[in-house]
């Protein structure tokens, strides 16, 4: 595996789950929970004759972002598409719960310094959702993660990081959206039903999954950034993600709360306004929506580099 100093300038998109986990926190601070030597494989895959992995496709651990302990959960898309089963699901829930325990202990031990030492949860999503081989356990894991997110509200920030090959789809698309903050690179994609599945069920006229430009315009980070489903759009290096996570770690819980999309009556109303807007305008393409939010030449946006895009883009205004 690459060293931290090499990871800094490496592509986030191409990185393995472990490289991302190590590179997202400060140099030399990462400690992994249930690492490969613990051999915590899925018991279900063995019975089904499916290949197993020592970490069950998920790297969890803790590191530092400045003085803030960062609990990292990083999914490996090359192992069964990063899908969530019983073991990796439990690892995910366990890591979030551990962040809450740490928060409680820090509060008790350093009452005056909680803000400065406040932990955060960072989840690097690369998944299609539930692992069908262990479907019920996978679904339960989704529910438990959502539950744990609720327990974290106003105490520990939860940050979704999306920018890997598989993207973030299925039930985990919901989970990513339920976090406080979402950070993406240009290659990042979030959605519920994957493009191939939409095409298979509804036909090519509804959604052409082979049209990559269309897929990115609809599920990709630039679109999410314009409609405010993504808070930070960064360049595709692990170092850029690390830097922005450091900034987020230092924000107050009030600032963190303002970045959320769901979780209060006001936010539900805001989402309903968006639904109404789409109903009224009947957009044929994401570009119609971009234009509505003030982008005069929407067709040019997908071609821009991240830096140019950030300079020129107009986003949906939030109250």
């Amino acid at each position: 595996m690459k060293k931290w100093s090499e990871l800094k300038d490496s592509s986030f998109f191409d990185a393995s789950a472990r490289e991302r986990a190590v590179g997202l926190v400060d140099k030399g601070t990462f400690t992994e929970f249930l690492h490969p030597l613990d051999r915590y494989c899925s018991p279900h895959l063995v019975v089904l004759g499916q290949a197993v992995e020592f970490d069950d496709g998920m790297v969890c651990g803790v590191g530092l972002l400045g003085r803030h302990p960062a609990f990292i959960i990083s999914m490996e898309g090359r192992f069964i598409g990063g899908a969530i089963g019983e073991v990796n699901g439990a690892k995910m829930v366990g890591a979030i719960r551990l962040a809450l325990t740490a928060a409680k202990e820090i509060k008790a031990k350093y009452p005056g310094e909680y803000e400065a030492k406040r932990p955060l949860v960072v989840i690097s999503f690369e998944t299609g959702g539930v692992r069908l081989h262990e479907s019920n356990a996978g679904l339960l894991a989704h529910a438990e993660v959502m539950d744990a997110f609720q327990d974290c509200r106003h105490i520990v920030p939860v940050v979704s990081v999306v920018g890997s090959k598989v993207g973030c789809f299925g039930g985990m698309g919901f989970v990513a959206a339920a976090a406080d903050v979402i950070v993406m690179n240009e290659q990042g994609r979030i959605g519920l039903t994957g493009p191939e599945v939409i095409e298979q069920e509804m036909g090519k006229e509804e959604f052409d999954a082979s049209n990559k430009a269309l897929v990115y315009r609809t599920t990709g980070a630039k679109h999410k950034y314009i409609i405010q489903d993504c808070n930070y759009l960064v360049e595709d290096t692990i170092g850029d993600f690390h830097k922005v996570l450091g900034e987020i770690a230092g924000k107050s819980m009030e600032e963190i709360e303002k970045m959320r999309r769901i979780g209060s009556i006001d936010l539900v109303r805001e989402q309903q306004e968006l639904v109404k807007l789409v109903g009224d305008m009947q957009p044929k393409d994401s570009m119609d929506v971009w234009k509505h939010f003030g982008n005069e030449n929407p067709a040019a946006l997908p071609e821009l580099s991240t830096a140019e895009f950030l300079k020129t883009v107009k986003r949906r205004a939030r109250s």
Partner: protein
Amino acid sequence: MALQVLEFNFKSAATQSIPKEWSHTGVTGSGDLEVLLEKKDLGGGVKAKVVTPVKGFDAVWEKMIQKFVTDTGVGNLSIEINDDNATPIVVYMRLRQALAEATAKEAE
């Protein structure tokens, strides 16, 4: 239906293990494998455990790992592999890569 678990023992001329207690490389992706190397006192020998969905290639696995042991001269080493349909040359390459990572100096 269940996964194949293959175990092999090799005699090695050398007793040269890895400097770290253990080292892990790779991902069990499609056509790929992960390798877990562990320093073990095996009287100079090498033992290997392979977990794979593929049936009927026990002899190929044994040959490939034997070649790795002979070529690199490792000893006192435990090799554990989780495989997902990797071809023999990929297996050999990953084993070499795993050993390289296990012996790489932490230069920083």
